[in-house]
């Protein structure tokens, strides 16, 4: 690269800073940093084993194939690959998307598809299109931590519906909708990650999928189905996406290539009925005109080789192994009182500890052992919830790191449990809490998802 002298910007004065601050929109007020986010920043230290990330493994992508694909683009399509593209994305990219959706049984009209800059932009564009300040958005509890700031930045009132091992509780959803009816309000949309949910790792049952879709149709409500992990299934029978059950009238679909190819190419998509799509396209024009044409060319080349299904199969094998390693490590190192989900796919396990352990404080303790996870509160809009749960990632770390990371966290938990025992153990003045009776404890604690302990089987 040509040596360019760095131009240092003239120092900004304090007055400048204050002048900018006076210009900030009200919505930036809800984008504050928190003590928890400061803690998460520390997890980026290189010596930390981070089970906090959500990274897919990109190390096994064949370098030779990547080089050949990029070379072909350079030889055959330099001008086009370096040019702007259509806002909706190239038709060839949409064809690839249809192939991916087809693999899960969905057959959308290509005109209903827009290529976005990652699934995250699709969520942002949908919220931008539908949400005015004060509008209600419904999502799962816990929900994808990355969706919380999106809903906050459009100043939505976010209501979370509890999950269990069969996903969002539809009974509870109906109760909330009835309450909103009474207030003369309704949600702008219901956001769900039905398959291998981030962060809980649970999958919505077929019965609940049907109920959700029927409910949406009956009430003419929009459901936003975010499905980044659907093809990363390690076991069990595939379930139809909400989009397939509904046919695309009341379900807006969000997909991404981040977890099945690469997050670095930033290619996701949304599928929506024409009137909604029209507004989403206008929103995208305003945001970034179009998604990267260069990476769309790469996607076309990659799918053109016809090996994409095998690559996903390879990823599934890797992740299945890592999930098993993590489940085994959890069994070895986490205390008897802990519960965790056994995901049939995806990237995450959600573990819940005795309610007297605050996972935010536990993270502060764990960081001293150079290990990190995501405290459960990140998945709730109300940060007083999820305090005894944690999200653990197994896809972006090696088996050795998983074992060592879980061992270190387990050690920190054991210390806290032992201390709690010393604090409650032999006194008479203090009534005994319901410890030792895990089932009773779970029922009492509102935020403890009633997941079965791993290995107990499911009904």
């Amino acid at each position: 690269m040509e040596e360019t002298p760095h131009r240092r910007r003239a120092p900004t004065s304090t007055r400048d800073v204050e002048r900018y601050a006076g210009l900030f929109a009200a919505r930036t007020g809800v984008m504050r940093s928190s003590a928890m986010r400061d803690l998460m920043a520390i997890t980026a230290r290189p010596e930390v084993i981070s089970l906090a990330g959500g990274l897919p493994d990109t190390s096994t992508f064949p370098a030779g194939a990547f080089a050949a694909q990029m070379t072909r683009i350079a030889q055959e399509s330099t001008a086009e690959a370096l040019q702007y593209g259509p806002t909706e994305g190239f038709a060839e990219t949409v064809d690839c998307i249809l192939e991916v959706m087809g693999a899960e049984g969905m057959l959308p009209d290509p005109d209903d598809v827009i290529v976005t800059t990652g699934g995250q932009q699709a969520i942002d564009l949908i919220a931008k299109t539908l949400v005015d300040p004060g509008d209600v958005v419904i999502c799962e509890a816990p929900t994808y931590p990355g969706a919380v700031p999106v809903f906050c930045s459009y100043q939505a009132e976010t209501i979370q519906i509890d999950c269990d091992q069969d996903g969002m509780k539809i009974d509870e959803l109906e109760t909330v909708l009835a309450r909103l009816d009474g207030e003369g309000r309704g949600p702008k949309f219901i956001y769900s990650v039905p398959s291998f949910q981030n962060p809980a790792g649970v999958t919505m049952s077929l019965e609940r999928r049907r109920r959700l879709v029927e409910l949406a149709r009956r009430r003419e409500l929009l459901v936003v189905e975010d499905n980044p992990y659907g093809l990363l299934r390690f076991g069990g029978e595939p379930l139809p996406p909400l989009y397939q059950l509904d046919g695309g009238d009341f379900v807006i679909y969000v997909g991404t290539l981040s977890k099945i190819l690469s997050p670095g190419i930033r290619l996701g998509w949304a599928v929506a009925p024409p009137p909604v799509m029209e507004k989403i396209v206008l929103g995208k024009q305003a945001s970034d005109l179009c998604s990267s044409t260069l990476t769309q060319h790469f996607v076309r080349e990659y799918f053109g080789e016809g090996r994409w299904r095998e690559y996903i199969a390879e990823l599934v094998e890797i992740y299945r192994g890592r999930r098993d390693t993590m489940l085994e490590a959890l069994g070895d190192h986490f205390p008897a009182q802990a519960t965790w989900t056994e995901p049939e796919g995806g990237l995450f396990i959600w573990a819940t500890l005795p309610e007297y352990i605050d996972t935010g404080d536990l993270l502060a303790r764990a960081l001293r052992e150079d290990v990190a996870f995501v405290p459960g509160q990140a998945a709730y809009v109300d940060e007083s919830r999820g305090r005894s749960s944690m999200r653990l990632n197994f896809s972006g770390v090696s088996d050795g790191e998983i074992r060592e990371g879980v061992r270190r966290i387990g050690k920190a938990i054991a210390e806290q449990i032992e201390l709690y025992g010393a604090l409650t153990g032999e006194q008479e003045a203090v009534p005994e809490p319901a410890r030792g009776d895990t089932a009773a404890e779970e029922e009492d604690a509102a935020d403890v998802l009633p997941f079965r302990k791993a290995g107990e089987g499911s009904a």
Partner: protein
Amino acid sequence: MRIAVLKGGDSLERGVSLRSAARIELALTGLGHEAVPVEPGPALVGRLREDRPDLAFVALRGGGEDGTVQELLEILEIPYTGPPAAACARCADRILAKHELRAAGVATPDWFALGEAAFRELGAADALGELEQRLGFPLMVKPSHGGSSLGVGLASSWFEVPAALVSAFVYDERVLLERFVAGAELTVGLLGGEVLGTVEQGVAEVASAAYEALGCAGFAQIALIASGDGPQTIELDPAPDLGESGALPRAAAAAGIGFEQLIGRIVELALSPAGA
């Protein structure tokens, strides 16, 4: 002047420190000083010897406020901003600070301090019943060291005390159980011994007395509660958050002192012989 801005570190409050420091560096540059950012670490002493700054602006949080870095700066004979090392050590230790306040007759809520060893080895849990009679519920549980509100919890019944203790013990081996005082939470900023902004006289008097009792100089931020029995001192922060949302810069602004002017004054105070 060449001013080393000490910031970051690997404390849990690194983020707060970095945000404060970014604004401080801008203000110092605006005032015509040369701001040299310095992160503490094994090379700190060597770095300071080599740089020979005229002054160190201490913008550290959580670990930078317990007097350790200030002691080093005294050894190296580099003047620094904020309270002297001894005052920092007193403020950073909530238990020590409360003893000093009580000894000086400054109002602070009743408390008991206990170490982890007392529970593990001496059966301190058996004495929690007596604590209830003395402090009542709800009560605050706090680690003796630790900035922001990390590890600070409110227990509204016995059931919640052990969990609150488990959280507090993450941050320190000693914790205090403190009587909960109902009332408005107040944050008072002091600059050179003067209370910033319009503060009710009784509150200003208690805040000044607390500042004196702990031997502060330069500036500090004091948290109080306006209870029915008069203002109660909760704690002193010798290295307050000087970021956008920090209480001290906001109090200064309310008093008509812009951020740059505030930083200028802190620098002046650090270099004045009395440090007042």
